[in-house]
Structure formats: structure tokens, C-alpha cells
């Protein structure tokens, strides 16, 4: 019984620590509140069920969880029923309007981070957002923005380097 109780605390801690970051990513990929909520649940289920396959020597726990969330969300955006349902939704809904939606409150602790992120160069930010929040592969970004694959890699790398400078 005691162990069961501890597990519950563990699940809650995991959720409280990471849900807002994961939800932010999922929401930006699927751009639909109801779907994003379902996917957050799927994400935590998969995290929980495949925990044994997480290998700490290959990277941080958070990176592993983010990639699960991104994979689930990207798979969803490519599914047939999502494409059908989203025809009526505004899929090009831009990121700025997301914050206005009711029920999604911004974490005040990260407000400072947001200002720093705003300092990213636009050509870097658009690639980073396409890859990280929209689930584009490098090849897809290259196609979408009509720039060479090498340039995509360089700009993405520079974007991450800028982030490193901003956050350190």
C-alpha cells in the first residue's frame, strides 16, 4: 500500500514538473485544444508504459519525453481523421493567438524566458519553431521555406547556439 502511494506521488510529481512544457509543445503542433488534451494524456501513458526503455546514458529524461510528445503529436497531424477534422479549423493559426485562448494560462515564471526568446533572429526562430513545434523534418523545412538543406541545418544550429547564449 505504501509503495502504491509513493508511485502516485511520483506520477503526480512527474506530471506537475513537465506537463506544461509538454502541453506547450503538443498544442503548438496540433493547434487544437481538445486534441492537445487527449494527446497529453496519450503522451503520459506512453511515457509511463515505456519507462523501462529510457536509457539515461543516451540523453536527458526531458528530451526523451519531449520526443515522445512530438512523435505522438506529429503522427496525429498526419493521420487521416486529423486532416479531415482540421479542414474546418484554421491550421495556420499563428502562435501569437494561442496565448489568447481561454483555459491556457501562461506560467508567470517563464515570462522572463519568453522575452529572451523574443531576441532570436526571425529567420532562426521560424526554423526552430517549424522543427520543434510543428514537427517538420529538416527536409520538409527546406522544401517549405525554399532554402537549401545545408542552410536549414546551419540556421537551426545557430538558433540553438543563440538559445544557449540567452539561457546561460
Amino acid at each position, binding site marked *: 500500500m505504501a*509503495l502504491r502511494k*509513493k*508511485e*502516485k*506521488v*511520483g*506520477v*503526480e*510529481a*512527474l*506530471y*506537475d*514538473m513537465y*506537463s*506544461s*512544457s509538454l*502541453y*506547450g*509543445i503538443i*498544442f*503548438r503542433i496540433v493547434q487544437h485544444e481538445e486534441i492537445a*488534451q487527449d494527446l*497529453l*494524456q496519450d503522451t*503520459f*501513458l506512453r511515457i*509511463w*508504459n515505456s*519507462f*523501462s526503455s529510457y536509457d539515461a546514458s*543516451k*540523453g*536527458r*529524461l*526531458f*528530451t526523451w519525453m*519531449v*520526443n515522445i510528445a*512530438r512523435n505522438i503529436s506529429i503522427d496525429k497531424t498526419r493521420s487521416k481523421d486529423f486532416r479531415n477534422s482540421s479542414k474546418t479549423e484554421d491550421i495556420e493559426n499563428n502562435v501569437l493567438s494561442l496565448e489568447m485562448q481561454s483555459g*491556457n494560462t*501562461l*506560467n508567470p515564471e*517563464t515570462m522572463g*524566458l*519568453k522575452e*529572451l*526568446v523574443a531576441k532570436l533572429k526571425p529567420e532562426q526562430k521560424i526554423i*526552430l519553431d517549424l*522543427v*520543434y*513545434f510543428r514537427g517538420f523534418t*529538416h527536409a520538409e523545412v527546406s522544401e517549405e521555406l525554399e532554402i537549401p538543406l545545408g542552410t536549414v*541545418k546551419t540556421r*537551426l*544550429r545557430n538558433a*540553438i547556439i543563440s*538559445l*544557449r547564449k*540567452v*539561457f546561460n
Partner: protein
Amino acid sequence: MKDLKSYLESGILEQYVLGDLSNEELLEVEKNALNYPEIRSELLEIESALLSYAMANAIEPSEALRNKVLNSLEKAESEIRPLYGASSKPGQFYKYAFAASLALLFISVILLINLNSKLNDSYTQIAVLQTGNQKFSNQVNHIDEELRDTRNALHFYQNQAAYKLVTLKGSAKAPAASMLVAFNPEEEEVMIDLSSLKMPSNDKEHQYQLWAMVDGKPVDLGVFDSEVDSTGMKKMKSIKYAQAFAVTLELRGGSANPNMDQMMAIGSI
């Protein structure tokens, strides 16, 4: 590897972290990461940067969703348990326990760091308060002593006739030394005049000790310090008879028997 720098800058590590690599490329990065610490630290840096970016873009999901997700996890867990728990996968249970401990550890570390810094703040505050307190009580002691010495002097001036004044002259060790001892045999009172005291300043390890010579034997009358700005009169231990007074330099706190080598001043009644 031929050129580590261009490998680090090729963008493949970013792709690795973002999960945008084929299985083959993925294995290659992992193999290289094992061999080169520079690659490992670069990967960690990229992960940290993206973690911060995710946090900057976090959206708090609703409280209702929290309960829904937690309930579904609990439900999934209880469904899995009878399937694997008893027979084939005893490790299943430890997996959850491990995850839970990991999360708990994380929280504990944060709490600990937090608490520790608060504790340190408190220690600093206590130290500051203690210093202030110590300073204050030292001041009170000093003023107290001064007041007592001044009262003694007043008492002496009011009853001068009852006192015998004995001037102690410096010995060969301290020829310039001199001091005045007021002795009142009736009240068995011995006082030294601090304002006219002329003795070399004593260091922190030593103190002067006043002795009464009674039938050729020294009797301890207590210790005193020689300070430049002392005023008033200091009351020493009481004695009824004495033929002479003498001062020796002793270890702080005084000695049972005088150190005759350190005889500083002497004067007979």
C-alpha cells in the same frame, strides 16, 4: 575522427536531439558520443537549450486535465498489474518505483538546496546578532567597571582620614613604575588608584597581581590591568594586617605564589 570540430558544427547533433535522424545515423551518433566527451557535452548543451526553449513556451493545461491524466495512469497501471505483475515481469513494479524515486529525488534535491540556502541566511543573521549582542554586553561591562571604580574613588575621598596611603616604587625591572595603594585596616579595604597608576602596559597573556606582605609571607590581593585611560579606584581583596604591598607580573588570572623574578613594584607601610 578526422575533424571533431566540423562534426560538432555539422548540425547532426541537433538533429539527433530533435529526433530527426535515420536509425543508422542515430547509432553512429551514439557510438561517437561514447568515444568523444566533447560530443557528449555538446549534446547536453543542446538538450539544455531546447529544454529552456520548451519551458519558455510552456502552456499550463487545465486542472481538470491533470486529474484526467493522473486517473488514466492509475487505471492503466491497475490493468497492467495482474497481467505482468505476478508471473512474467516482476521488473514492471520496480520500473514504477524507480520512476517515482527519480521524481522524488529531484524534488528533494530542490527542496534541500532551497532549505540549505535559507539555513545559511539564518546562520548569518544569528552571527550578526550575536556580534551585536557581544559588543553591547562588553560595553555594559566596561561602563559597569568604570562606575564601580569611580564610586570607590568617591568613597575614598569622603573618608580620606581612615586610609593609609602607600606609594609603591618601581623595582629594577621597571624603574619608572609607581602606584598608589589606599589601605583601610578598619574596614579591611585595599584599593589601587587607577588614575595615577604608572606601570608598563601588560599584554593579553599577563596581568599584574597585587600582594600584601604579612609577617614575611605574600598574600594574594587580586589581579589588575594597566590601561592608559583608566580612572577611579579599583577595590582589591580585603585584608586586615599588612606590612608592605608588592606587585608582580603573572599569567592572566594570577598565581597562587608570586613570581619573584617578575617583581615590578614594592612599598612598605
